[in-house]
């Protein structure tokens, strides 16, 4: 017992001094589990997040936009990989995480359950959705868990490209025809409130916030980050020339911040429960990609086993030399 108490004291002291917890350190089980859940949920969001925009790659309006969009979606895949890799340092298993996503036992960000109806959505996702993600993620570069914090530093550098390409796309459309401006306004109308929901439930309905702050898992409350996002975004909207769909949105000189209207939390609850417009479609698509890739994974393993005598996670015996020789001769 004394041992555990000493370890716990050391853990608390490390966090108290703003030092990072590293993979093989002792940590409370609740810290480990919370961290795995958070990183996994974040990883799943990046992976599912490829779909709404991936939807438009084949219909990009120019080669330039297509190259940009491919690079962006590839980044999302990369971010998912950095994060799964960080989760694995805590003892999580990659295949198990994928299984938990596909079977709905772990969540991903509610925002990706909304459809992308026009090319303006690609721009608005970059501007608002990635903008909100940056607000959420910049403080996580100081997460108390080292491997997560390092992944976040890498991710935040790349997210900046995501947001800027989106805003630039929208500026271009706003300089276009009336129909194009209307597309931008329509996309803004649809994504504004779901973007505010990305910060999670209001503070008084977020029971784990206190412990997460004490453990350096969270750095700011949901409401603080939401307010920060609104304050950053309002001037961007007016520069762009779109109206944010909130009649209660106005500058409050006393607070020195923008007041904004009430978020429809019932909608968020419904989307999280699986009743958003695209939940079923997103999971089905992810599952199909995983299932249809099974033969590739198996073939690669078989190839590796045959050609290098490398048999991962099985007996240390090399496959008999004869057959691999035959194989290499066949190839020649």
């Amino acid at each position, binding site marked *: 017992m004394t041992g555990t108490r000493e370890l716990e004291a*050391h853990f608390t002291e490390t966090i108290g001094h703003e030092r990072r917890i*590293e*993979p*093989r*350190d*002792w940590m409370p089980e609740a810290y480990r589990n919370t961290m795995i859940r958070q990183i996994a949920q974040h990883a799943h969001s990046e992976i599912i997040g490829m779909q709404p925009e991936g939807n438009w790659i084949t219909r990009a309006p120019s080669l330039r936009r297509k190259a940009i969009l491919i*690079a962006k979606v*590839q*980044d999302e895949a*990369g971010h998912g*990989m*950095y994060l799964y*890799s*960080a989760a*694995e*340092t805590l003892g999580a*298993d*990659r*295949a*198990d995480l*994928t299984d938990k996503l596909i079977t709905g036992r772990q969540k991903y960000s509610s925002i990706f359950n909304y459809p992308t109806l026009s090319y303006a959505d690609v721009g608005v996702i970059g501007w608002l959705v990635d903008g909100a993600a940056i607000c959420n993620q910049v403080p996580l570069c100081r997460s108390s868990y080292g491997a997560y914090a*390092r*992944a976040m530093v*890498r991710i935040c550098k*790349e997210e900046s490209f995501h947001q800027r390409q989106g805003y630039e796309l929208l500026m271009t459309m706003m300089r276009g025809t009336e129909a194009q401006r209307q597309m931008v306004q329509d996309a803004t109308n649809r994504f504004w409130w779901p973007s505010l929901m990305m910060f999670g439930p209001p503070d008084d309905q977020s029971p784990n916030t206190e412990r997460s702050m004490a453990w350096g898992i969270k750095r700011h409350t949901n409401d603080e980050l939401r307010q920060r996002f609104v304050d950053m975004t309002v001037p961007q909207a007016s520069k762009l020339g779109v109206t944010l769909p909130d009649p209660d949105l106005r500058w409050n000189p006393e607070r020195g911040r923008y007041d904004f209207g009430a978020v429809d939390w019932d909608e968020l609850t419904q989307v999280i429960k699986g009743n958003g417009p695209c939940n079923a479609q997103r999971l089905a698509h992810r599952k199909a990609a995983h299932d249809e890739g099974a033969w590739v*994974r198996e073939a*690669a*393993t078989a*190839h*590796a086993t045959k*050609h*290098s005598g*490398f048999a*991962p*996670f099985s007996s240390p015996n090399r496959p008999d030399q004869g057959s691999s020789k035959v194989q290499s001769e066949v190839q020649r």
Partner: protein
Amino acid sequence: MSDWPLYEVFLRGKRGLNHVHVGSLHAADPQMALHHARDLYTRRNEGVSIWVVPAADITASSPDEKDPFFAPAGDKVYRHPTFYDIPDDVPHM
């Protein structure tokens, strides 16, 4: 994926620097690990050289700083240049 082993990835950011650990990935064999590492960790010219090492082949010390493993260096202050008092007027030292 579990039957693809885990590789740790090290990048040399530019000539003159050491390889630095950047993360890990799964791959069926070392060659695939290199290709994946290129796609995953050098999409923006972050490296000029990559090492991949099967994670299972790494032997690590315990990370705990209080570990007696590092104690031998703890009481040898005379290994540092600041241990020695040299008058200020001695030049170039």
